[in-house]
């Protein structure tokens, strides 16, 4: 419970960086922090008290394994979400550097030719 809450605080910090900060890289880092938070949230949801990793080894009994392994589905979802985050990051970095080339700054307040 408190873990969920702390995790949500992490998400809010990322949101704060995204909304308030003017530096483009800070905004990108804000997105990254939010992605961390949401990935961790999904894994926390699948945790079992005194659970083991959902990987069977040869000396393990299948029946006890079923009753102790943590939930594998959120882990699969998070793996996909990490990849999506990496793809977004690559695109964001490409765009940031192109913007820098055009405007000569990383300051979002000076990048303001459009009216919004």
């Amino acid at each position, binding site marked *: 419970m408190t873990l969920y809450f702390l995790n949500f605080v992490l998400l809010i910090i990322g949101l704060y960086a995204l909304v308030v900060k003017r530096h483009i890289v800070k905004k990108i880092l804000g997105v990254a922090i939010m992605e961390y938070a949401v990935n961790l949230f999904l894994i926390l949801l699948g945790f079992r008290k005194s659970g083991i*990793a959902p*990987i*069977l080894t*040869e000396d393990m009994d299948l029946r006890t394994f079923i009753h102790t392994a943590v939930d594998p589905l959120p882990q699969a979802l998070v*793996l996909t979400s990490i*990849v999506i985050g*990496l793809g977004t990051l*690559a695109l964001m*970095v*490409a765009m940031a*550097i*192109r913007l*820098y*080339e055009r405007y*000569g700054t990383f300051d979002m307040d000076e990048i303001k030719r459009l009216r919004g």
Partner: protein
Amino acid sequence: MYEEKQSGMTFIVKTITNLMIGFMLVFGAYVVLYGHITPGGGFPGGVMIALAYILVTLAYGRKVVESMVSGVTGSIADDVGALVILILGFIGLIIGGTFLFNFLPKGTPFSLFSAGYIIIYNLAIMLKVGMSLYIVFLALAILQRVVTTREENKGDKK
């Protein structure tokens, strides 16, 4: 005008790179091939292989790494990896009637060739991920140099 620095980083970095690169490639391949038995899989393995090449780029400069895997080869490998995944899906559609059907025999657990097509799928993802991250790093590194050089030129004119 910007001229390609031939030297790259220091001797220490280069030596350590020489030592590490083989380990990184082998470990990446291991993580991919045993992805269905131990932790790992196509994605982390692919990123490891991309990181091996990126390490060479950082230590030796772009020319050396492009003599190993050129940008064009990388991008073709990237496309081929994606195509293999799609073709796996279509084979499943033809054999099993559903897209991405696991059409190979399941084998015995804990052996390398078990779990049907998962090993091929992992290898295709490795090719795709590794090569695409490597070529995007090359492109970003080039652009970054050009931007910095132009900044410096601007400063000179002032």
